[in-house]
């Protein structure tokens, strides 16, 4: 009889910050009712809905996507368990990790959104200001706190910033959305392609070590992308909040509120010129500092997280000889600065995870992570940190049986794909499925094990807007339609050489590649690279030279590459190859169809 009893784990660690407000669920439910009764006009309702984190769904007014914020990427076991339940009850039985440390539930009936908000609030999570013209989820590197190259852990600052701006009146009606990214170091980047990007740094002053940040402003990916500028040499930590407020005040005052297509802050910076903008920020900061009626501070909680090896409920010794372990170890784990500990990255196919896998993950965090929580990553994935090296084989076995041990998380074989035509109003192609197809092909060919490809990336957006971050990919794609006479086919513009590290640059357009030719074209690029590489080259460094026109091999420019690749992209006739004219995941002829975007609503 005792064997039937479920053994219980020690109580899981819970989040220190409650991001939720219980009453918002009721308020949302009532507002939906008023809207349905015609007592709320649709523009106001859309604004309200977005403010609460519910986005519209592709050509289907009655469905929403609920975007759950994970500030600094942190998520606790009870929260993952709850999202597992909610995805099964109100969504499609799976959830989706975004590139901005959100978890999304798609195809939710509008009238059920309030039930999700209620369920989230019980575990301290919110979707508030996950959409709309607000401060979006404040990101932090999943390696912050464990990265050997960081000056200090930026996580407490990311959390404090998120806390300060959430529901803050000054952030409720900006000209457009506003994004903060904190990171650990230059290499793990993502700070120059966002409104405000921050890298922790320290300096010695009067014999003491002072904490501060390198702050980058005015970057961003979108229909038109820009690289951010560094504000000043060193911004001391006590100026972090004043700087943030100053930048937002300028944006609020001067940002374009009319032209939806050009109202992100990066356009303001670009139109005004960096030096002028920089000056304005520094002046505004002096005013902010001098005029705050009480000393306004970030509530930075620098108490270190408790690191405690979990007491395992079951302790069967894991065999190290399990198939695929070495490959997984190489492509999915990161050696932390803390001796003996690893961060384990879980690859998901384009960010998708089933409710059952979420349930398993919740247990594995409790059983294997000595910090008792997980961190969402930058590339539609999630990481369990502080896993002791002795436990890695055992964890691998557990992940394997849950279908969560796909190799190559930290390699080129884990492409990013935005949601595309699976749910987005603006999408022209099924970028989501294409990312999965590329991943399957890469894993089949074991390209995740190729060191030359490791640091490169593939990122795909279903339209010119950059949710899939194609602009910073080694090989990036964005969707559109191609045409042969009257017949349309799904097509992608390919861009090369984008990166988001210390040498951030946007990808350079190469050529249009039909959806069903994307995989052959990528493989061909790898082949050309192998023929032309220098001994210590990797794909990323080689492409970097090619797009900058400084390679001395046979491939001297993007045009040389284009010439070789063009024959692969020529459309066959429809009778010859009807499959060419259908997008992935569809057996009917391709046609473009979009709804109204809401990002700017």
């Amino acid at each position, binding site marked *: 009889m005792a064997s039937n009893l479920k053994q219980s784990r020690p109580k899981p660690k819970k989040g220190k910050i409650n991001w939720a407000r219980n009453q918002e669920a009721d308020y949302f439910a009532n507002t939906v009712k008023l809207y349905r009764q015609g007592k709320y006009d649709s523009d106001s309702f859309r604004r309200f809905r977005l403010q609460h984190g519910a986005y519209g769904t592709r050509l289907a007014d009655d469905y929403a996507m609920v975007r759950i914020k994970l500030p600094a990427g942190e998520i606790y076991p009870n929260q993952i368990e709850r999202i597992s339940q909610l995805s099964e009850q109100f969504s499609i039985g799976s959830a*989706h990790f975004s590139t901005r440390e959100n978890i999304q539930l798609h195809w939710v009936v509008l009238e059920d959104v309030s039930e999700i908000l209620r369920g989230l609030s019980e575990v301290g999570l919110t979707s508030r200001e996950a959409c709309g013209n607000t401060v979006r989820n404040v990101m932090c590197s999943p390696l912050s706190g464990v990265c050997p190259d960081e000056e200090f852990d930026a996580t407490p600052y990311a959390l404090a910033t998120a806390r300060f701006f959430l529901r803050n009146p000054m952030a409720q009606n900006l000209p457009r959305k506003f994004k903060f990214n904190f990171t650990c170091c230059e290499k793990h980047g993502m700070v120059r392609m966002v409104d405000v990007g921050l890298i922790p740094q320290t300096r010695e002053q009067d014999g003491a070590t002072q904490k501060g940040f390198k702050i980058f402003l005015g970057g961003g990916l979108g229909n038109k992308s820009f690289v951010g500028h560094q504000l000043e040499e060193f911004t001391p930590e006590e100026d972090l909040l004043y700087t943030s407020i100053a930048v937002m005040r300028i944006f609020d005052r001067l940002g374009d509120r009319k032209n939806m297509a050009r109202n992100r802050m990066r356009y303001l910076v670009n139109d005004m010129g960096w030096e002028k903008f920089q000056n304005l920020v520094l002046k505004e900061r002096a005013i902010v500092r001098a005029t705050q009626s009480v000393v306004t501070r970030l509530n930075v909680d620098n108490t270190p997280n408790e690191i405690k090896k979990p007491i395992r409920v079951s302790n069967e010794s894991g065999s190290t000889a399990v198939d695929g372990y070495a490959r997984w170890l190489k492509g999915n784990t990161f050696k932390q600065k803390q001796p003996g500990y690893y961060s384990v990255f879980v690859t998901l196919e384009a960010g998708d995870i089933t409710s059952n896998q979420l349930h398993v993950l919740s247990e594995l965090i409790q059983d294997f992570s000595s910090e008792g929580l997980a961190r969402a990553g930058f590339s539609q994935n999630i990481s369990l940190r502080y896993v002791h090296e002795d436990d890695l084989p055992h964890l691998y076995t557990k992940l394997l049986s849950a279908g969560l041990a796909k190799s190559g998380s930290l390699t080129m074989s884990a492409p990013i794909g935005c949601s595309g035509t699976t749910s987005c109003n603006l999408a022209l192609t099924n970028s989501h499925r294409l990312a999965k197809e590329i991943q399957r092909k890469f894993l089949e060919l074991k390209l995740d094990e190729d060191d030359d490809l490791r640091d490169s990336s593939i990122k795909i957006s279903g339209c010119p807007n950059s949710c899939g971050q194609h602009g910073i990919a080694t090989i990036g794609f964005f969707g559109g339609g191609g045409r042969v006479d009257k017949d349309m086919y799904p097509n992608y513009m390919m861009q090369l050489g984008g990166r988001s590290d210390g040498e951030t640059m946007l990808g350079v357009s190469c050529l249009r590649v039909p959806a069903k030719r994307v995989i052959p074209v990528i493989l061909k690029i790898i082949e050309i690279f192998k023929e032309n590489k220098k001994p210590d080259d990797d794909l990323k460094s080689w492409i970097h030279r090619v797009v900058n026109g400084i390679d001395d091999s046979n491939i001297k420019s993007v045009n040389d590459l284009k010439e070789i690749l063009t024959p692969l992209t020529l459309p066959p006739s429809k009778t010859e190859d009807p499959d060419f004219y259908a997008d992935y995941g*569809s057996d009917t002829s391709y046609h473009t169809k979009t709804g109204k975007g809401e990002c700017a609503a």
Partner: protein
Amino acid sequence: MSQEKVVKTTTDIDSLRSEIRDKSVRVIDVRREEDYKKDHIPTAVNLPLANLLSDDSPERVQKLVNSMGIDDETSVVVYDDTFGALASRVAWTLEYLGHSDVSLLETTYGAWKSLGLEQDNIIPEIQKKDHSINLRPEILATSDYLESSKDKRDVILVDNRERLNYLEQHIPGAISLPYRTLASSDKILRPKEDMKRLLDNRGISGDSEIITYCGSVGTLSGLAYYALKSVGLPNAKLYVRSFKEWKSLSKPTEKQEDANYWDLSAE
């Protein structure tokens, strides 16, 4: 001391245990025979759902009910180990026959066991009884009935399959309420207030006629039928042959066009 019987949707664990002690209840276990034989709630009889479905004509159901020692007055509690859906289908069948005092155990057999509650493998000896047939057509919906009511304004058709199945294909006009929505973490149905709020948000309330259906034999939608009953909605019907029959009759269906939602689901 006469006490008026209150008809309830679910029976809580403690009540069932005391009714078993008082021998005032007939418990039906609807799991497969081999599972039942291993262990079950004491005094329970076995009626595997498949056995019932092989022929669920009123005459056959009457025979089955008689052989389980159930007459018109017997208090019956049904349980399963599949979140209440199979038990619901059996309970509904008894209701349709005209049996008024039938309810669902509030939890599953798995949960019962994990709480360490009584179980044995004794197969009880049953004295046959005589149950009347007093059909209740008002709780049954047929495909013809669905067609005839499609233009009625006060009819709500509820699809209890998973969301992806609904998006892919459903009966025109149906709304989607996946069966997973109905349960709470430890009970087969949400607490009454919770359920009421959920249904109310979806416009499922008042005196509307509400018809539930699911994929094939009326199990998931059977559970939904009891969910509606649990909040006192008076006019619920089960389309017991459900979408399987609807499709086999080549009746019209609707789908969500222009989106590759299946590619968003993880395998």
